[in-house]
């Protein structure tokens, strides 16, 4: 990567110049990262320690807390609700990430063609959902997907298809939320992938054509191979985002029906509403551990593919 090249080059700068401003040059990076470090210590490290301690107590937020040892952890690990909140997030991931990668990849490849008419228009429109406020769209989702008066069911009825309980059946509530997420972020995914595609030199394709590779095989074997880092980057970002999904179920379904859209994030938040801060903190820590695990997995994937 470019940044490592740079880092290797910097110390090789002429010694004379370094001597001229030794302290300034040495101190500068510390000063530059100081704001981040200060905020990191204050608003990430401190709360993390705080949660860790709290996770071994039973506390309602008033009066003294009661030390309960590993109780909160054993409770959560044995609780159906905790596992089903993770399961719901996992199903949402399955409904979102693969679909998004495929659709965005196709769209990005098409948009990468300089001869495409209205290319700029398509690209701009793709980003319109991305710049809409999520909560406003969630409200619109409620109206559009209402089973009795929603536009979507009216449309289905008009073309003779059966109406669907989009938000009130356990089967459809997750796909409907996934659709909101897909709608909102696929445009951004397209642009990210487009940036990866544009860094592929045309000469690579020309070489392939000389070998007689068909267009389809070019797409698959060259494009996918070369943008895999970008794809993987996208997958990591979207995995974190799906895992944190909160506003969509909070506003649209409130976690229902029957908890089928209670995501990992929403379940965590529910402890706050019950004034059960100890269990909530243990839940936080389990999620942190899980995110770290998944992230490590992705990092390993990135390394292996290199």
């Amino acid at each position, binding site marked *: 990567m470019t940044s490592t090249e740079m880092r290797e080059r910097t110390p090789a700068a002429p010694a004379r110049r370094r001597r001229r401003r030794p302290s300034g040059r040495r101190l500068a990076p510390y000063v530059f990262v100081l704001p981040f470090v200060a905020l990191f210590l204050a608003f990430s490290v*401190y709360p993390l*320690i*705080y949660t860790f*301690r*709290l996770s071994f*107590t*039973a*506390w*309602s*937020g*008033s*009066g*003294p*807390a*009661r*030390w*309960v040892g590993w109780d909160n952890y054993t*409770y959560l690990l044995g*609780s*159906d*609700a905790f596992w089903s909140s993770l399961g719901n997030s996992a199903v949402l991931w399955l409904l979102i990430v693969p679909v998004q990668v495929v659709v965005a990849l196709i769209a990005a490849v098409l948009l990468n063609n300089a001869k495409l008419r209205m290319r700029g228009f398509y690209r701009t429109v793709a980003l319109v959902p991305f710049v809409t406020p999520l909560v406003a769209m969630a409200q619109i989702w409620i109206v559009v997907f*209402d089973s*009795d*008066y929603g536009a979507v069911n009216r449309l289905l009825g008009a073309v003779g298809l059966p109406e669907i309980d989009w938000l009130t059946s356990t089967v459809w509530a997750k796909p409907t939320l996934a659709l909101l997420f897909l709608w909102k972020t696929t445009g951004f995914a397209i642009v990210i992938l487009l940036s990866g595609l544009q860094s592929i030199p045309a000469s690579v394709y020309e070489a392939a054509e000389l070998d007689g590779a068909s267009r389809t095989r070019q797409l698959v074997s060259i494009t996918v191979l070369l943008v895999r880092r970008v794809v993987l980057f996208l997958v990591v970002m979207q995995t974190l985002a799906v895992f944190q999904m909160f506003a969509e179920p909070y506003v649209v379904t409130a976690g*229902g*029906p*029957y*908890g089928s859209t209670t995501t990992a994030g929403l379940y965590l938040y529910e402890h*706050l*509403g*019950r*004034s059960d*801060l100890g*269990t909530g903190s243990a839940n936080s820590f389990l999620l942190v551990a899980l995110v770290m695990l998944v992230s490590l997995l992705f990092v390993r994937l990135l390394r292996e593919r290199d």
Partner: protein
Amino acid sequence: MKRTQIRRRAVAAAAGLTAVVLAACGPEVSSDAESGAGDTGPADGTLAAPDTDAPAGEITIWDRSGDLYEVFDGVIERFTERYPDIVVHHEAVDIDTKLPNTLIAGADVPDGVFLDDAKVAGLSDHFYDLSAVLEPYLDDIAAQKVDVNTVGGRIYGVPWDLNPGLLYYRADILEEVGIDPASIETYDDLFAAAEQIKAARPDAAPIHLEKEPFLSQLWLEMFASQLGTSLADENGELRLDSPEYRQILGWLDEVNKAGLGTRAEYLGPADLAALESGQQVFVPWAIWWDFAPQQLLPQTTGLWRAMPLPAWTEGGARSGAMGGSSFVIPRDAENPELAWLFYEFLVFDPEGFQAVYGPNAIYPDGLNTSVPSYAPAADPATPLFGPLDALGGQDLWPVAIEAGEQIPGGTPIPQWWAGAVDYLGDNLQRMFDGELTPEQVIAESTEQIQTNLVDRAS
């Protein structure tokens, strides 16, 4: 040598720092592992009445936005006439979502809050114990209301309204089909009447079956209250696995399976449509359902009537409590004593309760969505609100007061009641979906509530 010394010092400093940070983070942890979290001394957390003749200061009162906010606004006007030195800031707030966060955050905490009875116990750690100030009034307050505000022998809410369950019905349809409402004395009679209506009007599914999990659990508790039971007894022991619940769930299941029920969310669009069209004829619900014919049912307003609920057994109680609210005073309140003065005025002072239930801008004939739980205010002979046009001129006051008197006591609300909705509320809906039998609802809910709520509450 020097270097190791420095290193050692650095390690010690780091360890010390970590210890300081760890100790500084988070609440004080009680060393006695067995003592309860809410176990703070009696001196701490018990509210006393103010001892001055000229109380002064500012209080912030939270009420749910909507009709009651407007009603209480009128009461505040009277209150400040009585106590000119008290300034009341009245705020309309989405209490269910805002209150837990605010109590935990401890900032801008209101001095008094209007709260569902079902939620008082769950948050009681954050409220003042009101036993001392309520003492003079206790004998005159409906037993059911005292029960629901009591946790561990202490009372955490000023009991406000009593919400007797009633049977709302379409008088025109009953007359058309030839059913005398007075003949509906038991739930078996109601079932038979529903069948009769269905035979005459094939589109009808006469009995309302609640679809929203929280409300459906509240509704189930109304039926249970009729039988003098509730989810947990005064020791917090779960008592769902009982003949009473078996009878109720069995009846509901039969209604649903026989196609005699309309499953709809309380006053949602589908519910309103089914009420207007005559598909729904019977709504066994708390008194506050009368809001619907007054405000939301323009086509059928005036056609509805109210009567006591049927009894589960012949001669049994003809009403049970459903919902209701009380007023709580958070421990982080700035002026808790003044908040108590306000609620004392609102609930127990004749000028106060007349201002609440008497005519006002929203309810020209008086607030009729509940009745007082304080006996001197709930006199059958002296109605606080007048007859309702929406009920064809029926005088609801005596019906509701008499129903209220029938509500059995001994039905406390456990701290985890609202949390049980994820289990019992959902399982009840699954029964209506046809996924669970009444037996399974009882068995599964009991197991889930026991492990997730009861065992973790103590």
